[in-house]
């Protein structure tokens, strides 16, 4: 996915001289996760600014640049490190527009990889999926792509948004390759999308869990089960339209996420399905989520902590049997 993100950044840096990148090792080092590769050489140190390890303050610098009309894109080397910057994210980035009665806006993007990597051993402080923390906070837009195409178009749209956007790059998909469309297209950052159509059950995911749900749908097809896959893409605002439409047809849903289950985005999605789609449901909505433990190191434990293909397949089959 990093190729798509890199292309989005390059195009926006070229298009608008107010766009400025800040982050740790994004410049001379060339980007820890390759997302900013080549940009320092192409645009120079004034547009691609290396920062010291001062997350709280360089996020605050981003807020200051944004209220002055710049369009900063601030990278968290890993989203886990944003915990150091939560005061700026929650109290400044998210709230300045509202507190000022709309007199100021903060057109800034906070982006970076979250969640476990692809069999990477990132462990407990580098591989967390903190989506819920951002999605909980009014004033932020929070979105996450599930493929290369969306990644590029959504990041470009995020940079052009006048609202602050938290752009979460799914760690498990970082190394996923694929052709990237080099045209100047945008993908909305507030719309869910049907990624696969099906008849018998609805799988709902966001970011990496959409990719996993698509894999599960292919497995299920072998057993003659046709699963529809809804990619939420945006977690704030939460666009329930496609999921509710899908449930009207399938009457069954399973929500998949890498995040911890309790109080997470999946819990919110299920609650909305209950409130707005209850009469379309034949069976309870099930969840397949990350296990509620700090991400362990050993390969087998790490694997066991993540939502599994098999777990999704089983959950879908259970909903078809009444989920009893």
């Amino acid at each position, binding site marked *: 996915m990093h190729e798509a993100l890199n292309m989005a950044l390059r195009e926006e840096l070229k298009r608008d001289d107010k766009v*400025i990148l800040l982050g740790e090792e994004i410049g001379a080092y060339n980007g820890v996760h390759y997302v900013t590769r080549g940009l320092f050489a192409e645009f120079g140190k*004034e547009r691609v*600014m290396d*920062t*010291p390890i*001062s997350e*709280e*303050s*360089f*996020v*605050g*610098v*981003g*807020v*200051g*640049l*944004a*209220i*002055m*009309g*710049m369009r*900063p894109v601030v990278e968290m080397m890993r989203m886990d490190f944003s915990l150091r910057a939560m*005061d*700026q994210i929650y*109290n*400044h980035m998210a709230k*300045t*527009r*509202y*507190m*000022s*009665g*709309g*007199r*100021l806006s903060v057109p800034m993007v906070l982006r970076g990889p979250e969640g476990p990597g692809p069999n990477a051993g990132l462990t407990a402080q580098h591989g967390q999926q903190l989506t819920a923390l951002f999605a909980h906070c*009014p*004033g932020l*837009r929070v979105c996450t792509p599930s493929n290369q195409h969306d990644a590029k178009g959504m990041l470009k749209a995020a940079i052009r948004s006048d*609202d602050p956007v938290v752009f979460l790059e799914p760690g498990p998909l970082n190394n996923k390759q694929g052709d990237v469309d080099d045209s100047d297209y945008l993908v909305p950052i507030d719309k869910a999308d049907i990624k696969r159509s099906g008849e018998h059950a609805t799988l709902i995911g966001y970011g990496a869990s959409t990719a996993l749900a698509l894999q599960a749908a292919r497995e299920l097809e072998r057993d003659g089960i046709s699963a529809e896959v809804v990619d939420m893409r945006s977690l704030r*605002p939460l666009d329930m339209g496609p999921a509710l439409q899908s449930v009207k047809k399938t009457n069954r849903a399973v929500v998949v996420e890498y995040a911890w289950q309790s109080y997470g985005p999946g819990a919110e999605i299920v609650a909305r399905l209950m409130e707005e789609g209850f009469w379309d449901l034949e069976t309870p909505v099930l969840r397949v989520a990350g296990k509620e433990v700090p991400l362990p190191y050993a390969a087998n434990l790490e694997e066991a902590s993540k939502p599994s293909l098999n777990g999704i397949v089983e959950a879908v089959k259970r909903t078809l049997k009444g989920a009893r």
Partner: protein
Amino acid sequence: MSVQPQPRLSGRTTLSPKRLQKCLEQMLTIREFEHLGEREFKNGLIRGYYHSYAGQEAVGVGFLGALDLKRDYIVDHYRDHGHCLLAGIDPHAIFAELFGRSTGVSKGKGGSMHMYSPENHFLGGDGIVGGGLSVATGVGLALSRGGKDGICICFFGDGALDTGTFHESLNLASLWDVPTLFVCVNNFYSMGTSLARHSSLSQLVDRAQGYGIKTEQVDGQDIWAVTEAAERIVKDMRQRHRPYFVEALTYRYQGHGIHDKALNYRSAEEEQKWHDRDPIKLLSRHLIDEKIMSEKQIETLRQQVVHDLEAKLEVAKQDPLPDESELFSDVTL
């Protein structure tokens, strides 16, 4: 425990009679504004928190008097009413904000700590101790990127030096040649915790060392001293495009907020010592001694200031509350 202004203070400057009279009017406006605000807080018309600037007027008057708000910007902390007035925001809009009215400077959605007026280059009040330091660094960076010689001034209290972001922000500002003027308004109390109990060093200016930034201490009760330092520093910053740190020694007469009676952590004797060096008193005495104004003229000016502010306050009182639809405006749902 008593605290006294410390040595290593800057020099003073001479100011024209006209300039001094303007300074007096500004200081009286802030002082009387805060008195009226305190009254309305006690009347229940102002909710939540109210941090009074009374006692610290010379700091704001001196520093903001040295700026050119056509090109310079202000990032403030929560003790912001005085700085709002000095930025040129209509007192009516400040009172209205305090009363939570739709005509308030932030449409009634921010309150005492969250005043914003971009047209006055006033980029907020901030409710988090130290929260504005990095934002002001970003504002300064934007100014330097724009190729202009504007500077950003950032006010914060002595308690902000105890946050990590103070040190991060000074480091970033120096590293990137950011023209941000960091003004520590040292009123000797981090809420109710005295300097001796919250700072490892008794001279806060020493805690800003180590970042390659020019620093100095100024007597914040003395309008001549503040003005001298402010004008010299601003000139220096416009030429060098570098950050600067100043510690202004002053005192707040009220507690941290109006609700805080400051009973448990400082003595009446200490308070009296500072009242003896009240910035308005020092300036008034000079004006009288030099026969620039008589005591009676000063009192007449004060009454005029109160009269004008009362008129604005009364209008703000009658202004409407925000429409309920405002609950969901200025935020993406």
